[in-house]
């Protein structure tokens, strides 16, 4: 027991950050599951974070309500952004979402209400560890059930082949926007929770490198199943501590290892590290079990 207390004392905040990053990775997973490469999810987290933070600090809105407002605000922006940009494909979509993210970041720097470059200060530390993991559990459950719903199959079809999906009767614009909006909602929620974890949020935390990090979490973990990004985010967030544990302390080397892991995964494990845990042929069968079909 002493050992466990000690563990939480040392790694308590790491565990919180893992949780937030897991949620952010899950938000990108939803978008990726419909085949859409978004680099805007960090900005959605920023929108959620700033919205919630401003509401609690300046308007005295209760915590849970502020979370909901942050997530909804991000979802609304995601919806409005998604409608025009989702006509674009592949890297063009990535770049449109990226420039959106930059505009959001620059706006946060220049606006009064967001506190400018110094960041938004004074959010009480309402977000507790158990709550983060409760939200992860709920979101994870939601995503696992979503996977084999009508929307889930549509996402899957669009990712595999958008043209074939539309010929099958799938309204691709609708479902892409839906995936984008759900992703924005989750990102906004994570951002709102993050804002109440750290006392301060700054525009730089939601910029391009944050967006790329989320993508890396999803790729390293594996973006075909919802628990892939969970694993990726947990591993990479904990990586500095793990590396320290095995004696790697110098900064550049940690960075190098980060890049190397990503390279190895993309070259040899296109479905992410999570595919190491999955048995090959079983995949097909267990997928159906998850749909509740195998029970009868």
């Amino acid at each position, binding site marked *: 027991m002493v*050992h466990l207390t000690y563990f939480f004392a*040392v790694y308590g*905040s790491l565990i919180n950050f893992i949780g937030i990053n897991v949620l952010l990775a899950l938000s990108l997973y939803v978008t990726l599951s419909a085949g859409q490469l978004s680099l805007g999810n960090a900005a959605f987290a920023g929108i959620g974070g700033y919205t919630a933070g401003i509401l609690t600090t300046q308007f005295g809105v209760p915590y849970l309500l502020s979370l909901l407002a942050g997530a909804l605000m991000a979802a609304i922006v995601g919806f409005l952004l998604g409608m025009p940009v989702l006509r674009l494909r592949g890297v063009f979509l990535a770049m449109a979402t990226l420039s959106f993210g930059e505009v959001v970041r620059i706006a946060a720097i220049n606006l009064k209400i967001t506190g400018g470059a*110094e960041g938004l200060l004074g959010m009480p530390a309402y977000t507790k560890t158990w709550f983060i993991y409760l939200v992860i559990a709920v979101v994870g459950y939601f995503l696992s059930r979503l996977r084999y719903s009508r929307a889930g199959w549509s996402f899957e079809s669009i990712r595999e082949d958008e043209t074939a999906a539309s010929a099958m009767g799938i309204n691709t614009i609708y479902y892409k926007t839906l995936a984008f909006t759900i992703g924005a909602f989750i990102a906004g929620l994570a951002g709102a929770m993050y804002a109440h974890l750290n006392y301060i949020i700054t525009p730089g935390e939601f910029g391009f490198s944050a967006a790329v990090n989320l993508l890396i979490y999803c790729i390293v973990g594996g973006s075909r199943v919802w628990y892939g990004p969970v*694993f990726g985010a947990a591993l990479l967030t904990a990586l500095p*501590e*793990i590396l320290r544990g095995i004696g790697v302390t110098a900064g550049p080397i940690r960075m190098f290892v980060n890049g190397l892991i990503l390279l190895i995964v993309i070259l040899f494990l296109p479905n992410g590290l999570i595919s190491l845990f999955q048995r090959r042929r079983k995949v097909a069968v*267990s997928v159906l079990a998850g749909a509740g079909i195998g029970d009868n």
Partner: protein
Amino acid sequence: MQKNKQMMWMGIAVLMSLTLLLTVSTEFAAAAGKEAKIGLAFSMTGAAAGYGSTQKNGVQLAVDEINAAAGADGLKLIPIFDDDASTPQQGVNVFNKFINADKVSLIIGPTLSNTAQVSNRIAQQAGVPVLGISNTAKGITEIGDFIFRNSLTEMVVIPNTVKVAKEKLKISKVAVLYGNDDAFTKAGYEAFKIALQGAGITIINEQTFAKGDRDFSPQLTQIKSQNPDAIVVSALVEEASGIVSQARKLDIPKSVPIIGGNGFNSPGLMKNAGDAAEGVIVGAAWNTSSSSSLNRKFVEAYNNKYGSLPDQFAAQAYAGVYIAYQALSKAPSPDNHKAIRDALAQIKGMNTVLGNFSFTDGRDADYIPVVQIVKDGKFAIFGE
């Protein structure tokens, strides 16, 4: 539900292996008789990596000197360096490790104010003293009574600079150029603005840039067209040297001086801006050219050890270790954080490379800042 079971096991396995790795990674070092561990959280990677590396150099130099002088019986310092990666997240992780795993007596750092805003709260809660050596933002020491800093804020340095510059240069209208996406440069800008208004100097043009920018010619061209008496710049040294050299390349005459704050106080300014740096006026928290024996010894030792001249970050780091050491020596035991804190708070009139150093009641640095001018590739006291 076969899949769920499989997943659950997988999840447990992952969690367990993570736990194991993390626990194994933290060894309990037995503290020997007269030793004090200090945690040093600096940015080794990320945006502030440039400052973190000189801070580390400054600390290492001071620690080596102290440990050599301590002899067999004296109190020795065990420095534990870690990388805050220029992010609040990593900063907090490092602080947690310092406090709970390494059980340090005191923490020096982190490099950036934004990180300090978050990480210092952890230390305050745990009752472990923190000495900031480069945090200049508002509200850092207000976090609590365990938070100190030896870095003079822009609010202290800049009014003095403006006052001296006005007296000596008779300027009445200036243009301002500042980095608007960085807490440090933005705070510098606010300080300049207040000081300039207080001194009755008109700001005829305000321009901004972003971190990482290299091209400042559009802003400088705009400024040049308004013929200011001087250009006031709030920037860190990377951008500062670029601004200075491009201003001269754009033919803004040397009769229009450039005035900067703490961010300019680095030999990097002369190294990277070259001749263009001549005549730049730098208000700063450390007098590079101070002839005090302590300072001369520091500059020389630093140059010998690292082959380059120290900047203000190194000087503040160096001074920080000595300040911390004084407090640690007075405390009955290195575990007694409360006593260390009290000893820190009582430091008054201590002779450091920064000058005659005291902490204010608000645990901020209190000593006299300097106004320097670049002359023959070196900083000299302005007006002497």
